[in-house]
């Protein structure tokens, strides 16, 4: 019988520790498939940090350094310095990348470090149980703003791709989503381009992936996917925000 689908070789046999309907499993699978297809698994050094993915070192069959909350890109900067030929990848959530680690994120991008970020944006703090994230939408109800995000108190969400695209440093910046099989395929293409941007063009690359967190959104998994599609995508438009030098948007 012909095998048409298999577990990516870049994943270990360890089951994902995530909640039912969580998007991390899909995003992990995309990353692993891209590693397999680009042949970078053996040269990959993954930098993991904080949140639900704190133990993803058990899932990816690559060398891993676990850094402090928010400091993933400081760690990755140094790892890439030590091993310029390695493929250095950080996997970060919205709190990690855009709140506690915003400074490290902006400055790694500004320095133009040749590392790749896969940024899972689910608009909520997952591991701590559903607090406001820097990407929580206006009016979205979470445990630290029960009546919905309010500009008088919580301020406004941060669009990371747009923010980073203002920097003069060369980069590849894109946003995808895993709300549907079609968008999953498109997101995978963006991740592949981001891998190539690091290894072939030597630039900073980041792919933001909109991802559902049904448990903390207090929705069923299908409703959470619909919420990503109907609420998140209009505020966080999908597409490419910056291409490496010589390429046109």
């Amino acid at each position, binding site marked *: 019988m012909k095998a048409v689908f298999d577990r990516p070789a870049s994943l270990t046999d360890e089951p994902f520790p995530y909640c039912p309907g969580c998007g991390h499993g899909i995003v992990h699978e995309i990353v692993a498939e891209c590693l397999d297809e680009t042949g970078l698994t053996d040269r990959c050094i993954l930098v993991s940090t904080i949140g639900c993915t704190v133990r993803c*070192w058990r899932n990816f069959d690559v060398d891993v350094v676990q*850094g402090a909350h928010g400091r993933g890109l400081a760690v990755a*900067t*140094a790892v890439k310095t030590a091993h310029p030929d390695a493929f250095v990848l950080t996997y970060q959530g919205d709190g990690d990348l855009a709140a506690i680690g915003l400074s490290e994120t902006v400055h790694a991008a500004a320095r133009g470090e040749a590392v790749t970020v896969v940024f899972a944006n689910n608009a909520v703090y997952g591991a701590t149980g559903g607090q406001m994230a820097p990407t929580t939408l206006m009016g979205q109800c979470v445990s630290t703003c029960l009546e919905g995000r309010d500009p008088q108190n919580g301020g406004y969400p941060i669009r990371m791709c747009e923010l980073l695209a203002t920097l003069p440093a060369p980069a590849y910046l894109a946003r995808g989503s895993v709300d549907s099989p079609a968008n999953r395929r498109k997101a995978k293409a963006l991740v592949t381009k981001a891998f190539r941007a690091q290894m072939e063009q030597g630039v900073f690359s980041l792919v933001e992936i909109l991802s559902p967190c049904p448990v903390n959104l207090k929705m069923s998994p299908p409703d959470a996917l619909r919420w990503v599609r109907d609420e998140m995508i209009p505020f966080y438009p999908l597409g490419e925000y910056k291409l490496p030098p010589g390429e046109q948007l």
Partner: protein
Amino acid sequence: MMKGNEAAAEAALRAGCTFYAGYPITPQTELLEYMATNLPRVGGRFIQSESELAAISMVYGASAAGLRAMTSSSSTGVSLMQEGLSYLASAELPAVIVNVSRGGPGLGRICPSQGDYFQATKGGGHGDYHLIVLAPASVQEMADLMFLAFDLADRYRNPVMILADGMLGQMMESVVLKEPLESVPARPWAVRGRGDGARNIVISAPYTDADLRTMNLRLKDKYRRLAEAECRHELHGAEDVEHLVVAFGTAARFAGEAVDSLRADGVKAGLLRPITLFPFPYDGFKKVVPSLKSVLVVEMNEGQMVEDVKLGLCAAGFRGPVGTFGGGGGFIPSPADIEREVLRVAGMEVAA
């Protein structure tokens, strides 16, 4: 002749440091600038980081990836590094951190101070851990202890802090530098991309509660081994010392002068200078206690190391008077004042 900051930087290069990340802060900035100019010349990378938080995490990443890595800062900035120091200790990563400390608390001022003794020796960040802490007292030691720092860091897989102060960083003295090392220890555990082999994993968070307990026990055992094998101190003055002064770093320079002056006057004074502040040389007191009548602890803070001195003296069976002298916020104890305090604690007549 070199400034202490520059001697430390040059020694680090000769000790095989190939990665430096740091953030400008007085009075350590010459160290950072020396690295910016000279680290690229030996094929290393200097990064002026966006913060001390980032600097220490860059050192964490560089060390995990196999490089001899260091950072430097001064008190205020070292406070920001406590996060990364705890992570370095937990992941058992070698690294060297120089604290050219200044007066605090808070923003304080750039005057010399030893106010960071507790922070350096008792953990500083969260959780049960220790840095190895070395205390130079001269520009020569700023250089020599840098070699020792990198060596201990690799041997014990533990971050090492060199606790200096603004005076040691800024003053110039003649210094003889060791020849550059020809090689540094291999780190087979470092990440590099697994290739065809087994993967390497450097983590701070163990998988289970039992794993975390195991990590804590492993660290505890390491600190015990350090206490057994790596305590260093210097005894200045004869072994028949009756009136002991205990001081580290810059304070020990003033205290040494005071001791020499007292001995010239016939007072059997001596100086015990801890060089390792962690592990603290508690056993160093055993040798001097039989003849000992009084002790004065001199610190450029409001009394921090005195707690460890009292533990050492107590364990050695000393029951005589223990005085303290010094102060934080930039107070510089003069040799004459130290002499007077030694005599006062000893209950001896103080000349008018």
